[in-house]
């Protein structure tokens, strides 16, 4: 057999994947794009229009977008502040404890996302465990559920592992030697953190931030269940267009816009991350 025969076989193997990808990624995307740029005419036809996009810039919808971005940013920040020390502690533990903690961290992810979020309703509800505790202490019950705070808690709870895991990966790659070298050169613990650990864990911070921000900005389950639909997020708005209002055209335009925003924020992150080699700190 000739060399060309050998070369061809891997190409052939690509076709199932290409077929799969075009069926489940390209075709739906094209459909969404098509919907977003069309409007139904009175005659029952569809005509090209950018009205769906123009509609997004009405203050009502811009406010929804702003609220989503802000809430997602807050959730990301809380995840970072909580996750960074957690990751540092995990890295410093012995192998046995480290693996146990990592397992505990990942364990809830094996339970259905919806179920996990429902369970917070039980915790935060009027007759929930937290209020029962407050009552037992002698304090008046609080309306915790169906608030902005409840949505934030839900986001942090659900997405925290996506922050801790990449942080853990990049922190565990920092060798003991570099820390000792810094100490040798006169760095105390704070100097070591600021000048060695923090900059070397930057890839983990960036990956973790992206991994939390993206699902947080587009979630609709958490805000629907824990927010009670009071504070509408962009995810809820899209869901509403498809499931209750039936305006697939506007819903598609919103989806495309959100995709653009997420892609832009990822591009911003990768620009910040420029100059770092790919293998550093990328868990995914």
């Amino acid at each position, binding site marked *: 057999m000739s060399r060309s025969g050998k070369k061809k076989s891997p190409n052939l193997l690509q076709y199932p994947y290409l077929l799969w990808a075009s069926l489940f990624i390209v075709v739906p995307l094209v459909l969404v794009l098509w919907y977003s740029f069309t409007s139904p005419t009175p005659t029952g036809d569809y005509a090209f229009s950018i009205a769906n996009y123009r509609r997004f810039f009405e203050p009502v919808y811009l406010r929804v977008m702003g609220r989503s971005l802000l809430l997602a940013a807050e959730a990301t920040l809380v995840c970072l502040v909580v996750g960074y020390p957690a990751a540092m502690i995990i890295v410093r533990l012995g192998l046995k404890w480290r693996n146990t903690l990592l397992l505990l961290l990942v364990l809830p992810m094996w339970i259905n996302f919806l179920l996990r979020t429902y369970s917070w309703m039980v915790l935060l509800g009027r007759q929930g465990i937290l209020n029962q505790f407050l009552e037992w202490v002698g304090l008046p019950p609080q309306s915790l559920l169906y608030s902005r705070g409840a949505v934030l808690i839900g986001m942090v709870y659900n997405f925290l592992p996506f922050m801790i895991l990449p942080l853990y990966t990049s922190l565990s790659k920092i060798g003991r030697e570099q820390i*000792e070298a*810094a100490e040798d050169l*006169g760095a105390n613990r704070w100097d070591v953190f600021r000048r060695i650990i923090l900059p070397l864990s930057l890839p983990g911070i960036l990956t973790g931030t992206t991994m939390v921000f993206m699902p947080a900005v587009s979630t609709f389950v958490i805000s629907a269940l824990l927010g009670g639909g009071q504070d509408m997020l962009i995810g809820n708005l899209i869901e509403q267009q498809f499931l209750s209002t039936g305006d697939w055209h506007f819903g598609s335009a919103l989806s495309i816009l959100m995709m653009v925003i997420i892609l832009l924020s990822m591009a911003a992150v990768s620009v910040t991350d420029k100059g770092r080699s790919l293998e550093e700190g990328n868990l995914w």
Partner: protein
Amino acid sequence: MSANGKDLIIRMDKVCMAYGSHQVLFDISMDVGKREFLTILGPSGCGKTTILRLLGGFETPTSGEIYFEGEPFSSVPPYKRPINTVFQKYSLFSHLNVFENIAFGLRIRKLPESVIREKVDRMLTLVNLKGFEKRSVHSLSGGQQQRVAIARALVNEPKVLLLDEPLGALDLYLRKEMQFELKNMQTSLGITFIYVTHDQEEALTMSDTVVVMNQGRILQMGTPEEIYNEPKNVFTSRFIGESNIFEGFMPQDGEVVFCGIRVPCVDRGFSQNEPVYVLIRPEDVQTVNPQSGLLKGKVQSVVFKGVHYEMIVREDGRQWMIHSTKSLKIGEEIGLYFTPEDIHVMKRNGLEA
């Protein structure tokens, strides 16, 4: 021994070190003088790196004490010690360029930018890396990384520089060159160097004092000449240079019996009929015709080593290694001759490992 007549900078007093139940250092006592180039020489796992880690502050002795300029030093954290280290794997900061790696210690001390610039610049000239300021440390060769590591330590003007097998990763040519440069820097800067290596040649060529270690103990401490010419035990003589070692005994001072001959020697201080080891360096054995030799043997192998020939001579079941500039024929019958000064007698003290 270096306590007399020398300004002491470091004194280790009966220092022991154990990791759990595994003891790695036994009663290490040594004095290091100011501006001294001291080399700790020993096979891997002998505890030499542990000594550096104790001096650097990364470990605390299990017992005993380390004094720095007369003050107890064991509980001083690494960042407060006027000591810097060139690590075995260099441990450069991968997120910083060459300039920032060298400037690290100065930035910690919050020196003004202009001073930092000037000091780093001087170091770059010293280690011959001018023009590499902005380079990433990954893009440097082993020798260049090593020089960055040296500059990064020296720029802080430490009182003592610890070097942990710094030339281990370099090829022979570069290693020779760096040995020369290191020795030059040490003399011109007047800093105490404590240098760890398993390379005996490195130890002999650079040091003022050599400390020979094995299995967590100091076997001998002295000038390179003393260590080579007067090894106190079999381990030291085997580790430093090539040697012919035979069992024997001293019927009386100035006379030794080995290999079936009774010959005069210059060694004194032995009890009557004390069992000893006899050392003769390969370059001290002269080859003569069979009749005029002290011993007779047959040439077994000849290997050309550049400067000399290395020959193995079989003598009554024993093997002698001989270095000579003139070659012999394999199978040739020869006589072996050596003077009383060439014979070195060592006590048997259980450190023959």
